[in-house]
């Protein structure tokens, strides 16, 4: 097996707040091969967006980050400021959720893209490059002179994608790129991402809580809960035949349009994800789990092999009792 492009080892992120330390990511490890698309799924607050920020080290000042983020063998977390700034955007970039304030409201969008190009000097003429990028994402070049509030949600998302591609990165981290867009626009953006990935041979980390879009774009996926990865494997397999009770619940909660039996019998999951400051002992999912047993309350759960190319952090995997 070739060397992974990105190797995350035992990543831990703890926020500092007035209420004390908040562990958002607890011991996460995963690999990303060149040209691969990895999905990170989970509900809000499970830590997936924090990982995006941790990889580029743009989390708020004072946040504690430990572990290793090996980009081609070089640890991003250990980089000096100068090297880090050079690596940002040119090797890895983030496509943020296209909310209104992801872009500077008083600056023209073309200038915001040009800024990235000029900081890294990746093109001779930033104006032509900006026009190129806009074309690539399917927007007319003249829109470079617009301000963010003059664009629709879908258009802003495309601008953010163009911005992320400005310095020809090898890894694209898409953080909830289609949330808050309506379904038609979502489909367009997903198509765009898929096309770009193939044309530019990008590696992608796709972060979302929307499982339907994830299966569309990603080959492999990891499911997160309470700051940990609790299942990993091929996306289709993971959702069709989940090995972890949480994954099963997550997959079941998504309504299948057209499936009458599902419509008449929607399955939700009782309770809420745990507060990061008060994570239950043992398996963090056990208070909401329908198949929990006595050991789940205090056993040390970790990712155990659960089939070909699959891992799951459930005690039942050990005795293959859950199908």
């Amino acid at each position, binding site marked *: 097996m070739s060397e992974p492009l990105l190797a995350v080892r035992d990543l831990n992120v703890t926020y500092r*707040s*007035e*209420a004390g330390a908040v562990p958002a990511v607890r011991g996460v490890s995963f690999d990303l091969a060149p040209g691969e698309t990895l999905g990170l799924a989970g509900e809000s607050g499970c830590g997936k967006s924090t990982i995006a920020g941790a990889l580029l080290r743009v989390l708020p000042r004072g946040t504690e980050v430990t572990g290793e983020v090996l980009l081609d063998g070089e640890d991003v977390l250990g980089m000096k400021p100068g090297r880090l700034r050079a690596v940002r955007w040119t090797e890895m970039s983030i496509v943020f959720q296209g909310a209104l304030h992801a872009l500077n409201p008083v600056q023209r969008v073309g200038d915001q893209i040009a800024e990235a190009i000029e900081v890294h000097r990746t093109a001779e003429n930033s104006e032509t490059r900006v026009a190129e990028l806009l074309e690539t994402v399917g927007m007319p070049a003249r829109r470079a002179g617009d301000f963010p509030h003059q664009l629709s949600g879908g258009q802003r998302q495309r601008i953010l994608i163009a911005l992320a591609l400005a310095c020809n990165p090898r890894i694209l981290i898409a953080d909830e790129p289609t949330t808050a867009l309506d379904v038609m626009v979502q489909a367009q953006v997903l198509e765009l991402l898929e096309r770009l990935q193939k044309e530019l041979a990008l590696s992608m980390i796709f972060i979302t809580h929307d499982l339907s879009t994830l299966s569309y774009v990603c080959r492999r996926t990891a499911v997160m809960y309470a700051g940990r990865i609790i299942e990993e494997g091929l996306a289709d397999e993971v959702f069709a035949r989940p090995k972890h009770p949480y994954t099963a619940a997550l997959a079941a909660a998504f309504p299948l349009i057209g499936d009458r039996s599902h419509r008449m019998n929607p399955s939700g999951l009782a309770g809420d994800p745990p507060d990061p400051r008060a994570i239950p002992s043992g398996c963090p999912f056990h208070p909401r789990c329908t198949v929990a047993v006595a050991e789940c309350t205090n056993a040390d759960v970790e990712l155990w092999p659960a089939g070909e190319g699959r891992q799951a952090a459930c005690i039942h995997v050990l005795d293959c009792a859950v199908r």
Partner: protein
Amino acid sequence: MTSIAWDRRRRAFRRGWAEYRSDREGIVGLVVLGLFFAVALLAPLLADGSELRAVNTTDNPVWAPPTEFRPLGTDNLGRPIYDQLVYGSQVSLLIGIAATLIAIVIGTVVGVAAGFFGGWTDAVLSRLSEWFLVIPFIPLAIVLAATLGPSLRNIIFVIGVTSWPVTARLIRAQVLTIKQRLYVERSRALGASGAHVMGRHILPNVMPLVIANATLTVPIAILSETTLAFLGLGDPLRVSWGSMLEDAFSAGALGREAWWWYLPPGLCVIAVVLAFTLVGRAIETILDPRLRAGWRG
């Protein structure tokens, strides 16, 4: 009012109070205010009112520093500074609160009417508040005070009548937000009358903002009274912290370096104004969670 609504409000209030308790500055402000209010209410017990009149103080030394005459010295007519300070708190606090009440009532009525009725009412009322905002406050207050004559009631009236536009604008914006909320629409769809909607939905939701705004208007009112009194427009029969400063200035206390006369009143004003501001900010933080430190949205 249904008991469900009251229950909810009581719970919200208790939650608010629990939060307030954790705000250190808010508590400090509350304690300081409590102290000053206690002094104002207990003034007759804490100080000698007769010593405020020059006729009674002919036996006292004049211009006496605190080392000569306990506890805070005397002024040019032998009146003890301490007694003036204690009784002054009554006037300053009274004017601050009464004026704010007037401003808040006018401001809330105008703001709610403008926001709720919209159309012509809104256009007219908004224009009116804008006009009042443009007129510089001190000159207007000076002119009104000079016109109506210097008395306690008039000063309260003047400050109240010039301070309402800020409140009105704030309340109007809030009412517009509330008006758009679904439950108001639903209520009207059910056939509720304007008065019902206003009383049951708009007013209760505007109240917290009104309270926060009031707490932040009082310090401004107190500062205004201090300035007006200094310029000679206060009630000549009453002692206030501002009038003490006026007396000191015109008696030439500055040249004589009689700091014990004019330093304490200013410090008291700063303390009370600061305390009200801290309390107001604490209330604001409770109402708008985004103001809280460490909020991560």
